[in-house]
């Protein structure tokens, strides 16, 4: 009984060992052993309580975690991802509760119940098969479980071997044939036959092409897969040299290789493994992982050879795919424009070429560094780099992919900004981090330039004394700058979102402003307008606006207005306008006053000319009548005094006339028109009727000037008259001349009179200044004063050139 059990274990172990070496994915086998016992199986849920089972052996072939293998490929780890996973062999005593079942496998934690429940025990029982091979996915197994399952496997194998050997040796039965020789052994009892039947089943259910041969290579048995593969029946295959089997028919080299292998294994008993090719019944070539091992009998002779072939064509193909994938990822890794690091714990283990360029060092230099060596002490946000990095790395190791910006040192100590991503990968079962570092200095610089520009605009808007306002397409206020808020007396919170028109624009201006908005949208160009805005306390400000629409795509986004408060300017303009009007009024008033004053002066002059002169004349005439009517009574002295009275009256009469003449200049409206001075001067000379001894001449022809006739007459009359009057020579000569003096005419009146001492040259132009006693020479002293006054009216100047005894020359200019 015990031996049978051990035998089963051994058989299972052989199968599993094969699976261990070449096994598929997620396979397991179930076998039950032992005669029916009294325990019902209803707790296994198959609903057939008549079936009793004593024990159950479970083998798991647990593959490597496929996802983990995949990640390894991604970073190009050179590992054989197709390596089969370890197998777990667990026996269960069905009479014991679940924990007891597990205890037999070793000191370990329980297999999760779901795993246990998924095993198709019921199906095994129903089919009454003794071996079941199936697949399941054991998702629940975490890494830790995986390791202790391995441990369990190891323990189970050891136990199985021990149990197998110990009874064999202890029994001392030398007749026992090698256990692998199915069909070659005669089993004398029912149990043995049953066992043989079971192992036949296992043999044929194997996924491997399996054959058994004697040490000479004569094929003793093949399993069903091998026969099916070749397309030849088992009977035809047996008892022939193995290398002449149909699997090798395509390749003599393979044949000789296997032949040599058989010879070698048969000789020294060491198993061999190699890869070769088989052709199947359809002639297709398969890649085969081939193994050959020897089975010794109890006395250690090599009794049998077992050949096993595993079709690894698909494996090869996937290997190729994996290889391609590795190439692909390798090229990405090598050619990436971002620096890519592989980190384990907090150490660099690999980096790509771009890393060297970015950090400015060799791969070796970089890999010697700690990640913190490539960071400044503090990050731009002020946090210590080590602390922040540790956070990020820890989070990434915990399975949260990280993406953040980081300031890095280059090897030469210069700084640059980078965008970094951290992702966890499992390589060789250990967590690693892949760090991708992208240089974003350029982007940062552009960002900063943009930020600076934004800041500049913001500053401009905030610091400007002008008003800035943004009004959304819906009419709501989006933004107002501090200058405008201050002027209106609102806070930003109070205005944002308010309807601009109804909140800030007085009724009277709304229609016009609405039209401006419409025009802005239609024209799409900035416009200029003025309107009032209301302050919080109800005052009105007049603002000159430069408005512009801002479009988002084709749609109006908002209106932007820049305004200047022109309330004061307008007030000032208004004041200036008023002042001007006032001033004009004042000028008008003053002019009227002046006109009145002039009129008064005229009136005064009239009064003077008449009312002052009339009494004088009366006195004069009365005195004259007295001297005439009382001539007989008056003596000479009396008559003489009456004459003196008349003389003084005449002088006073002349003075009054002089004053009137002088005051008339500039008081009486001038009448400037072209005057032919040649003609005028001749008339003057004629009017003066010079005495016979004085000769007055005009040199050349005098020009035509634009002037007031009366004034010109007065000038020449006085100058020529004076010259004639004062001549003291028997042959007097007065010359009137004119010369061109650029833009003016220069006139001169020259005489050969007594001349004037230069010390009097200025004095003679003063009013009522004469150089001779009044009674000697008739004259009021007004003449030259008049001349100078008139000439100055024409922007000219009267000059005198004279010496005593050498005559005098008066010159003056008039405009052409």
């Amino acid at each position: 009984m015990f031996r049978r059990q051990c035998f089963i274990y051994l058989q299972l172990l052989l199968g599993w060992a094969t699976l261990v070496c070449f096994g598929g994915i997620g396979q397991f086998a179930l076998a039950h052993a032992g005669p029916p016992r009294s325990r019902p199986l209803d707790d296994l849920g198959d609903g057939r309580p008549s079936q009793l089972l004593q024990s159950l052996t479970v083998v798991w072939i647990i593959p490597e975690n496929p996802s983990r293998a995949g990640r390894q490929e991604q970073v190009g780890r050179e590992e054989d991802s197709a390596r089969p996973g370890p197998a777990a062999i667990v026996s269960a005593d069905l009479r014991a509760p679940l924990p007891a079942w597990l205890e037999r496998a070793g000191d370990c934690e329980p297999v999760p119940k779901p795993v246990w429940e998924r095993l198709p025990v019921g199906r095994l029982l129903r089919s009454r098969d003794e071996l079941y091979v199936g697949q399941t996915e054991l998702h629940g197994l975490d890494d830790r479980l995986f390791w202790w399952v391995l441990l369990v496997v190891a323990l189970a194998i050891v136990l199985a071997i021990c149990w197998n050997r110990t009874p064999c040796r202890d029994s001392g039965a030398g007749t026992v044939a090698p256990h692998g020789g199915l069909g070659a052994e005669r089993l004398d009892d029912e149990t043995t036959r049953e066992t043989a039947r079971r192992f036949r089943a296992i043999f044929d259910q194997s996924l491997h092409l399996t054959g058994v041969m004697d040490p000479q290579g004569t094929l003793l048995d093949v399993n069903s897969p091998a026969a099916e593969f070749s397309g030849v029946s088992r009977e035809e295959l047996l008892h022939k040299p193995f290398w002449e089997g149909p699997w090798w028919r395509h390749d003599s080299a393979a044949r000789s290789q296997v032949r040599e292998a058989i010879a070698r294994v048969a000789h020294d008993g060491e198993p061999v493994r190699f890869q070769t090719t088989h052709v199947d019944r359809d002639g297709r070539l398969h890649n085969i992982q081939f193994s050959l091992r020897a089975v010794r009998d109890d006395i250690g002779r090599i009794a049998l050879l077992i050949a096993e072939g595993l079709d690894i064509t698909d494996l090869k193909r996937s290997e190729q795919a994996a290889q391609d994938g590795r190439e692909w990822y390798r090229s990405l890794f090598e050619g990436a424009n971002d620096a890519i690091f592989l980190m384990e714990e907090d150490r660099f283990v690999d980096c790509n070429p771009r890393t060297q360029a970015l950090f400015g060092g060799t791969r070796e230099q970089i890999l010697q560094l700690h990640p913190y060596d490539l960071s400044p002490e503090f990050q731009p946000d002020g946090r210590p780099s080590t602390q922040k990095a540790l956070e990020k790395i820890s989070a990434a190791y915990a399975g949260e992919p990280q993406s953040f910006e980081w300031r890095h040192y280059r090897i030469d100590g210069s700084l640059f900004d980078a965008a970094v991503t951290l992702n966890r990968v499992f390589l060789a079962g250990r967590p690693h981090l892949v760090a991708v570092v992208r240089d974003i200095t350029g982007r940062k610089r552009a960002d900063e330039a943009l930020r600076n520009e934004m800041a500049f605009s913001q500053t401009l808007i905030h610091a400007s004394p002008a008003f800035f306002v943004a009004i959304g397409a819906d009419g709501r206020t989006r933004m107002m700058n501090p200058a405008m808020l201050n002027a209106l007396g609102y806070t930003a919170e109070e205005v944002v979102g308010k309807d601009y028109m109804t909140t800030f624009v007085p009724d009277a201006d709304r229609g016009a402003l609405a039209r401006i908005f419409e025009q802005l949208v239609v024209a799409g160009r900035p416009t200029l307008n003025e309107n009032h805005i209301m302050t919080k306390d109800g005052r009105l400000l007049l603002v000159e606006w430069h408005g512009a629409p801002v479009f988002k795509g084709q749609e109006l986004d908002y209106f932007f207005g820049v305004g200047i408060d022109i309330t004061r300017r307008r007030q000032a303009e208004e004041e200036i306008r008023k002042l001007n009007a006032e001033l004009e009024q004042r000028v008008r008033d003053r002019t009227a006053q002046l006109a009145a004053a002039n009129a008064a002066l005229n009136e005064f002059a009239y009064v003077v000319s008449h009312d002052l002169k009339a009494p004088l004349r009366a006195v004069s005439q009365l005195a004259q009548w007295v001297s005439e009517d009382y001539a007989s009574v008056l003596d000479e002295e009396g008559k003489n005094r009456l004459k003196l009275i008349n003389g003084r009256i005449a002088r006073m009469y002349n003075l009054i006339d002089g004053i009137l003449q002088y005051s008339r200049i500039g008081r009486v409206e001038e009448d400037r028109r072209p005057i032919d001075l040649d003609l005028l001067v001749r008339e003057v000379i004629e009017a003066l009727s010079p005495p016979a001894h004085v000769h007055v001449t005009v040199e050349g022809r005098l020009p035509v000037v634009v002037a007031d006739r009366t004034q010109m007459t007065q000038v020449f009359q006085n100058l020529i008259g004076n010259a004639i009057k004062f001549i003291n020579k028997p042959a007097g000569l007065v010359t009137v001349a004119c010369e061109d003096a650029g833009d003016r005419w220069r006139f001169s009146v020259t005489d050969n009179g007594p001349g004037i001492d230069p010390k009097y040259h200025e004095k003679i132009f003063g009013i009522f200044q004469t150089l001779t006693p009044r009674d000697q020479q008739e004259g009021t002293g007004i003449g030259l004063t008049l001349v100078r006054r008139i000439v100055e009216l024409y922007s000219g100047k009267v000059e005198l050139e004279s010496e005593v005894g050498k005559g005098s020359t008066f010159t003056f200019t008039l405009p052409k």
Partner: protein
Amino acid sequence: MRPNTPILLVEDDEVDQITVQRALRDIHVTNRLLIAANGEEALRMLRDPACERPGIILLDLNMPRMNGAEFLRVVKCDAELKRIPVVVLTSSREEQDRIESFNLSVAGYMIKPVDYRQFVEVVRTIDLYWTLSELP
């Protein structure tokens, strides 16, 4: 001087009245001299049917109540009176007065000289003019 036609002197200054009287006497003009002290009085005399109409009017400009220019404006609008020759006899040398007077159709504009002898010459000239000039 035209016989039996009185001369009307419109003059407020008594000395000037005497001067004219004396000058006429000196040059032996015997026509009756009517004297009015201002324009109003002169108009009254001119329009008084009982008063003989003068052949010539010697007119001072500066007078109280109605001055010479005002008098002229009335007389020159009066169809009965406008043809009587008026000679202005004044002390004003103002251009304005001359222009205005001639605008009002005076027959002459004489300035009263200070000197009596010259005054007599002026009166003589007027007499001559009045004597020689054809009148309507």
